[in-house]
């Protein structure tokens, strides 16, 4: 892999890698470090893997997952809710009470998503946020297609249950 190909195929997915690392580590700084390390590793070792790697994005995602899990397991990272820096708040059409309630609900959903079991959390992230196919998710996480579908179903079911429960409580 030369510099041009690296810039065209790997560098553009840095945000995706960062989001994935952030989903696993829950720490902005740790996720940034993971992306830096992964990109360096891909660049330095790409010549050794250029013949075997078919999907650079999936390979980078796998490296990101492994590196993030290593960091999470080696250090007791305090899980913080990701996306704190996101400024997008599409509540402009709501009145203040509704906006406050919506923000409260979105924060609860984020928290619920972050507290899902690891596989469910990662499968849901890769499917619903990164929009990967089932095959790509299976390759990235090194699990079977059935495991992908099962974990996705359970994750969505958990979120739906929480939403319906909250709706029932609020009447």
């Amino acid at each position, binding site marked *: 892999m030369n*510099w041009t190909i*690296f810039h065209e195929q790997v560098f553009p997915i*840095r*945000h995706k*890698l*960062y*989001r994935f690392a*952030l989903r696993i580590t829950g720490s902005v700084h740790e996720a*940034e470090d993971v*992306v*830096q390390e992964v*990109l*360096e590793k891909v*660049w*330095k070792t790409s*010549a050794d893997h250029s013949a075997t790697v078919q999907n650079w994005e999936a390979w980078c995602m796998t490296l990101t997952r492994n590196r993030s899990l290593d960091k999470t397991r080696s250090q007791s990272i305090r899980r913080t809710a*990701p*996306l704190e*820096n*996101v400024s*997008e708040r*599409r509540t402009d*059409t709501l009145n203040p009470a509704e906006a406050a309630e*919506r923000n409260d*609900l*979105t924060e609860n*959903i*984020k928290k619920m*998503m972050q507290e899902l079991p690891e596989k469910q959390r990662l499968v849901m*992230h890769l*499917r*619903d*946020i990164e*929009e990967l*196919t089932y095959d790509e998710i299976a390759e990235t996480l090194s699990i079977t297609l059935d495991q992908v*579908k099962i974990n*996705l*179903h359970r994750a*969505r*079911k958990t*979120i*739906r249950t929480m*939403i*319906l429960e*909250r*709706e029932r409580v609020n009447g």
Partner: protein
Amino acid sequence: MFQLTHIEALLEKFWEGDTTLEEERLLKAYFASGQVDDSLKSYAPFFQVLRQEQAVELQRPPVVTEVRPVTYNWKPWLAAASVALLLTTGWWWSSRPNVDVPYTAEVTPETTPVTQPEAATQPQTAQITSETPVQSRGFFRHKTTTRKPSPAPQINEEEEKAMLEIKAALALVSSKLKKGRREAVKGTEHLETMDRVFKKKRDGEG
């Protein structure tokens, strides 16, 4: 436009995990449209969260340095080493001691009572009595050479007589040479005298 029944059906498939990526994108577009039916508004925050998370970007730009594989170019170094080796060898060869005539030889007085002429040397038969260790001036130090003196050769009467005759002959040659040299000097002086006389005579005529 989105049909509510279609959206509701897609939403059920979504929660079951049976939707395709295209169907999921359609649902996301619906909930982002701002025209969500009241019966589905409770799900809107979930899709809002998905949109927010998709917008998250890496703020710290990664730095990847272009690292070239290390290829060691040994050819210039080999050439430089060869030249250095040649120069060193040449210098060492030129500065090494002359091992052919390393010692001065003289005849011991007990065996040869006669004095040696200046020009005569007898390295083959004479006893080596003095040894001069030779120290190299070069980069590589030579081992100091020290030879044990060999026993004095036995000289019989005939050899002694022959040596005396040789010395007498050499003395005769030397005396003849001295005489010839004196005669040559005398002849040169005579020629110079004649030259002065002729010169005076030419000056007087002029």
